[in-house]
C-alpha cells in the first residue's frame, strides 16, 4: 500500500518537471542572483566590486526610496478598502436575479481583460484637459473649471485610484460572487421563517459568510497594489514632479537609467521583504482562525 502510493508520487514527477525547471531557472535562481547583486556595485553590464551592506545603508538614508515607498503605500491605503467595498457592492448587484444579471456581470468584468496600455490610454483620453471626455461633460453642465486630472498632485492620485479600481474590480467581484453563491439557501429560508428582514439577512448571514473570501481578496489586493507600476508610468509618468512615482518606477530608473543594478536589486529586496512580512501576517491570521 505504502509502496504503491510512493510509485504514484513518482509518476507525478514527469508532469511537474517541465514547469519546475522553468520555475527554477526563471524565478528561484533570479531571487538568489538578486541577493548577490544587492551586495555588489553592479552596473548594467558587469559586476564591479563587493560592497557588502553598503547598498542597504545607502537605501535607508535615501529620501527618494522613502518617498516612493510612501507613494506606493499610499496607493495601497487608498485602493485596498475601496476595492473590497466596491467589489462587494458590485457582486451584490450582479447577484440580484434580474434580466440584467448577465449584463451586470459581463460589464463589470470587461475592463479586467484589457491590457494596462489600453486602459491607460483610455484614461488619458477621458481625463485630458480641454478636449477630454470628463472635462467636456463638466463644461456642458455649466462648470467652467478646467481641472487637470493628471497634472495636479491630488487629482492625479484620484485619477490613478479610480482608473485602477475600474480596471481591476471585476476579478475581485467574481471572487465575491463565487462566495455569495456558496452560501446555502437553507440559511436564508430558515431566517425568513424566523422573521428576519432583508437587512438582518445581509448583516447576519451574507456578510459573515463572505469573511473568508474577503480576507483572501484583501491579501491579494495588498500584494498586487504594492507592485503598482505600469498604469502610473503610462498615465502620469510618476509626475507631477515625482508626486505619484511608485517604488518600482524608482527601482527601474536606478537600474536601467542610472546604470546601478546593484542598488536596484537592493530596493527590490526591500519590497520583497515587505511583501513577505504582509503575507506571513495574513497566513498566520488565517491559520489561527482555522484552529
Amino acid at each position, binding site marked *: 500500500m505504502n509502496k504503491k502510493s510512493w510509485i504514484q508520487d513518482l509518476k507525478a514527477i*514527469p508532469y511537474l518537471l517541465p514547469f519546475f525547471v522553468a520555475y527554477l531557472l526563471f524565478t528561484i535562481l533570479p531571487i538568489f542572483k538578486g541577493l548577490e547583486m544587492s551586495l555588489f556595485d553592479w552596473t548594467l*553590464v558587469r559586476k564591479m566590486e563587493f560592497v557588502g551592506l553598503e547598498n542597504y545603508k545607502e537605501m535607508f538614508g535615501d529620501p527618494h526610496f522613502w518617498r516612493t515607498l510612501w507613494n506606493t503605500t499610499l496607493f495601497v491605503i487608498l485602493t485596498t478598502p475601496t476595492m473590497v467595498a466596491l467589489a462587494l457592492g458590485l457582486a451584490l448587484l450582479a447577484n440580484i436575479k434580474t434580466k440584467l444579471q448577465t449584463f451586470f456581470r459581463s460589464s463589470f468584468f470587461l475592463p479586467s481583460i484589457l491590457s494596462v496600455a489600453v486602459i491607460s490610454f483610455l484614461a488619458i483620453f477621458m481625463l485630458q*484637459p480641454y478636449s477630454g471626455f470628463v472635462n467636456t461633460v463638466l463644461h456642458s453642465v455649466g462648470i467652467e473649471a478646467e481641472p487637470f486630472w493628471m497634472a495636479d498632485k491630488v487629482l492625479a492620485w484620484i485619477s490613478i485610484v479610480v482608473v485602477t479600481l475600474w480596471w481591476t474590480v471585476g476579478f475581485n467581484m467574481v471572487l465575491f460572487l463565487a462566495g455569495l453563491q456558496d452560501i446555502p439557501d437553507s440559511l436564508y429560508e430558515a431566517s425568513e421563517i424566523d422573521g428576519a428582514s432583508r437587512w438582518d439577512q445581509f448583516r447576519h448571514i451574507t456578510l459573515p459568510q463572505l469573511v473568508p473570501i474577503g480576507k483572501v481578496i484583501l491579501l491579494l489586493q495588498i500584494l498586487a497594489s504594492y507592485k503598482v507600476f505600469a498604469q502610473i508610468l503610462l498615465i502620469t509618468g510618476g*509626475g507631477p*514632479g515625482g508626486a505619484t512615482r511608485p517604488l518600482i518606477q524608482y527601482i527601474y530608473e536606478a537600474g536601467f537609467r542610472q546604470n546601478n543594478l546593484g542598488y536596484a536589486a537592493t530596493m527590490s529586496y526591500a519590497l520583497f521583504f515587505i511583501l513577505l512580512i504582509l503575507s506571513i501576517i495574513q497566513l498566520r491570521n488565517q491559520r489561527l482562525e482555522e484552529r
Partner: protein
Amino acid sequence: MKKCLIFSVVLSLTVLMLAACSSSGGSGDKASGADNGETNGKSDVKIPEGATEVVMWNLFGGGDAEYMQEIIDEFNESQSDVYINNVMQDYDEYYTKLLTSVAAGKGPDLAISHTSVLPELISQGLVQELDSLGSEVGVNWDEFNSNILEATVYDEKHYAVPIDTHAQILYLNNKLVGDAGLLDENGNPKIEETPEGFVNFLTTLKDELPDDKYPLAFSTAGVDSYRLWWSYYTQLGGEHILSEEDMENPEYILDVDKAIEAANYLRGFYYDSEVVPLNLEDFYTEFQSKNAAAISTGVWATGTWETTEDLDFSAMPVPNVFDQKGTWGDSHTFVIPYYQNADPEVQKAAIQFMDFATDKGAIWAKAGHIPAKTKVIESEEYEELPYRSEYAQVANYVNFADHTIYGRGVQDIMVRNLDLVWTGEVTAEQAFKTIEKEIKDLID
C-alpha cells in the same frame, strides 16, 4: 516504459525550448562575416553570395526608419561586397538591450547611438575608436560639421560617425500668424529677438486670434520643457550642468543664476503672459490640427507637418532672445561595438557604410534632421528640400548634453524638479537647490 518515453520527449522539448530562447536574441554572431548565400539561420534575410554581412541595430521608428532603410537599400544595391542587415529594435528598451548584448559579446556589428549616450558606451568599453579603421577606409573627418563632430570626440579619438543633429526649433502656422498681422510683406514673422520681443509676439497672437486658438502649443512637463529651458540657459551663456574634463568623475558646475533666469523666463509663458495652455496632453495634435499658431519641438517634426494636409507652416530656429545663439540638440551617430575578437573585415565594411550613409544625408534630411556633413548641407539636393535650409544653421551652435556618463540620470533629475517649477509648486530657486543636491548625490 511508455511513460518513460513520454517523459523524455517532454524533457527534450523543454530543453529545446530553453535553448531556442537563449539563442534568439543574438543576431550578431561575429564569425558569420562571409556567408554562403543561404539564409544564415539568424534571420530570414538573404545575404548575397560572397558579401560580408554587417548586422546593424537601429532604434528608429516612423519616417526615420523608412529613410534609413532607403539609404541601406541604396548601399546594398550600389555594390556587392558588403551587405547591411538592418535590424529594427524597440526604442524604449534599445539602450538596455544594446549595452547588455554588446557586453555579452552578442550585439550587432554596427549600431546607432545618440551622442548623449556615447559617454556611457565609451566608459564601459563597449564601442570601438574609429580613427585607424577610418583612415584605412578613407573617412575624411573634415567633411563633418565641427560642432556636431566635436560632441563625438573623446580624448582626441573619434568614437562615432555622426549622422545628423536634431535640434529644438520653432514652427509657425503661417495662416494664424498672418491673421494676427504678424507677417511682414515678405511673409516673414515679425519677431523681435529680445526676451520681451518674443513674449510680445506671443501675446499679440493671443490677443488677435480667436479664443479657441492657442498662441504656442507646448508641454508643461517632461522632456520638452527641459529642452527649451536648456536652450534659454544656453542663450544666456550657460554651458554645462556637469564638467566634461573627466566623464566618469564630473563636477557640478551649473550656473545657478542663469539657470534660474532661464526657468523663470519659460515659466512666464505659462503663468505671466499665459500664452501656453497648461497641461496639454498632446501638443503636437494642437499644431497639426491648426489650433496653435506656434510650436517648439525638435526638427524631426518637419516630416510630420509636411505630410499634414493644408498645414501652411514655416520653420525657424528657436528665437535667440538672449545674448548668445543657442538651442538644445542631440545627434544620431553610428558606432561600432567593441568585441575582443572582432572581424576587421566586418568593421571596415561597417565604416564604409557609415561614410556612404552620411554622404546620403539629403535622404536622411527628408525626416527633418540636419545632416552632419557640411557638403550635404551645401548640396543642391538638400537646398531643394523645403523648410530645411531655414534652420540648418543651428547645427553650428547646438549645445549638446554634457559629456559625462550621467547624462540620462541628470536629465531625469532635471525633468522631475523642473516639472515642479512648471506646475508652480516650487520656485526656480528652490528647484535648483534640490537639483544641486540630487545631482551631487548621483555623481558622488
